């Protein structure tokens, strides 16, 4: 009997899980929205655009090694590029849409390797064209070979703003300022953990060198408080914040730019797990709402696994090792595998633990002080799709609508095209800021996790 396994997401975790499950003779279906494997971190440009890469050589070597391993088994699995999983249910059904058709899969096990998206902290003016997530600007650069702005301000916290600033410079862009909530040098207080992450730390120093050599002004302890412009972004306003995250009056600096690239960390794409009924928990530093999983990636729903950043924010190297472990577990009928000493599985488990040591240190750079959410003024749009301002959310809260579902029903926040993915975490944090207690339940994710046309629903492939 060959077990059938569906994997959602072809990033590091999904690719590694697919490789392992094929090796264990499972029938694997891999569903991914992109045309080529890689996910966000190992995103591949169209072959016609291949060439110039602005990432560090070591990072590229890790990317190409995994993609090569994947390509060797790709012929032995049912790889659905350009397909979307839009619903998952507790009975094991996975609903996908693909090129104008839909299909229901009923695999023996499903692995959600859906990764993360960027965490949005709204601020006045952030809806202007030219204000982007830093990873979004990087995606345009990395896979499209287009400079997303001629003169950029890069801001936020954690390692990504530094990486994006360096890559913009290497692509010939100008970076007018790099503003970080707190210095990355805080990581140096944990030398053992840095040793565990030495491959990545080395890349980090090289990116930092690029930024230093270009003479980019580095504003540490500064955040983007406002974006200015009429039709498009014309300037970013940065200001210093104190240790509690409060803006220091009089510290504002206005910097003309046509790109403001901001990243404050990431939230898990956990909607499908929640939709299927998996028990969830919330931890803002490791991905907002994430499913409760054990060491084999098992959720509370039998047959439903998660792997990689979608299970918990831990970075690409953990995701790759985790994919191998979870792929092995899902391949076995009891959902756990035998890791004999010296086996590849035992080595993946050890790798995962080693890289996680390093990720603990990275997390220390991603913690957002609650006061930082005061960047969101009453007039600031929080839900971009439905143009809902914070003032409207506060009114709903004052009227006793305390849960995210109640707020959503009252002001439509989270009911637009993105399905609440962009604003969910911001609204949860703003509810916590306003009421003093964190919401316990996420907005109930229902089908469709992505918009699907009626025509595609009508064209259902037989299964």
């Amino acid at each position, binding site marked *: 009997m060959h077990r059938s396994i569906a994997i959602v997401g072809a990033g590091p975790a999904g690719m590694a899980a697919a490789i392992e499950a094929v090796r264990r003779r499972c029938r694997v279906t891999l569903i991914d*929205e992109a*045309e080529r494997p890689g996910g*966000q971190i190992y995103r591949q*440009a*169209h*072959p*016609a*655009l291949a060439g110039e890469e602005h990432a560090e050589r070591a990072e590229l070597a890790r990317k190409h090694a995994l993609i090569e391993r994947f390509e060797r088994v790709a012929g032995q699995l049912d790889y659905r590029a350009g397909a979307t999983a839009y619903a998952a249910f507790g009975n094991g059904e996975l609903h996908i849409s693909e090129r104008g058709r839909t299909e229901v899969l009923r695999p023996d096990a499903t692995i959600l390797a859906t990764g993360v*998206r*960027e965490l949005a902290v709204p601020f006045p003016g952030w*809806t*202007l*064209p*030219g*204000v*982007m*997530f830093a*990873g*979004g*600007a*990087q*995606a*345009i650069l990395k896979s*499209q*070979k*287009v*400079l*997303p702005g001629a003169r950029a301000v890069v801001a936020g916290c954690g390692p990504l703003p530094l990486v994006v600033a360096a890559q913009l410079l290497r692509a010939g862009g100008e970076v007018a300022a790099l503003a970080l909530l707190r210095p990355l040098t805080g990581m140096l207080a944990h030398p053992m953990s840095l040793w565990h992450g030495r491959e990545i730390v080395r890349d980090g120093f090289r990116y930092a060198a690029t930024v230093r050599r270009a003479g980019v002004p580095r504003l540490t302890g500064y955040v983007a408080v406002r974006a200015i412009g009429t*039709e*498009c*972004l014309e300037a970013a306003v940065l200001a210093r914040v104190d240790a509690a995250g409060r803006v220091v009056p009089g510290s504002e600096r206005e910097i003309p730019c*046509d790109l403001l690239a901001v990243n404050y960390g990431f939230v898990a*794409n956990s909607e499908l797990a929640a939709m299927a009924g998996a028990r969830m928990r919330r931890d803002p530093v490791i991905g907002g709402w994430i499913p409760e999983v054990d060491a084999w990636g098992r959720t509370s729903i039998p047959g439903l696994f998660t792997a990689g950043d979608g299970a918990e924010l831990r970075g690409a190297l953990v995701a790759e090792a985790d994919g191998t472990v979870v792929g092995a577990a899902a391949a076995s009928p009891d959902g756990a595998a035998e890791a004999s000493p010296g086996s590849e599985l035992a080595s993946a488990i050890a790798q995962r633990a080693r890289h996680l040591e390093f990720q603990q240190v990275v997390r220390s750079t991603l913690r957002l002080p609650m006061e930082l959410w005061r960047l969101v003024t009453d007039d600031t749009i929080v839900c*971009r*799709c439905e*143009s809902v301002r914070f003032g409207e959310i506060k009114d709903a809260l004052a009227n006793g609508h305390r849960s995210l579902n109640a707020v959503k029903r009252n002001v439509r926040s989270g009911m*637009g*095209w*993105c399905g609440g*993915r*962009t604003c969910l975490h911001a609204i949860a944090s703003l509810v916590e800021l306003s009421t003093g207690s964190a919401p316990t339940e996420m907005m109930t994710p229902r089908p469709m996790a992505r*918009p699907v046309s009626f025509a595609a629903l009508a064209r259902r492939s037989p299964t």
Partner: protein
Amino acid sequence: MPSDFTFSFEGKPVSAREGQSVAAALIAAGERCLRIDEAGSPKGAVCGIGACWECRCSIDGVPDTRACMTPARAGMIVRRQRGLDPCIDQ
């Protein structure tokens, strides 16, 4: 930058390279405002990965198509949506 073909945005020709998304080609051409939302505010590309739906355009008569996820093709007709107007008149 070498261009392989052109498509039309709001009636103007825009150069693109094979493999580029509509959003990337528009950004390269200096077109930042890809949509006017229901509240009348200009919107552009934000997440770059198909998650936020802010860059949706009318592409070859199909409204609400994500420009960042759609490969540009020669002769495509791309329109800037205004509010709820789906721009289906070509």
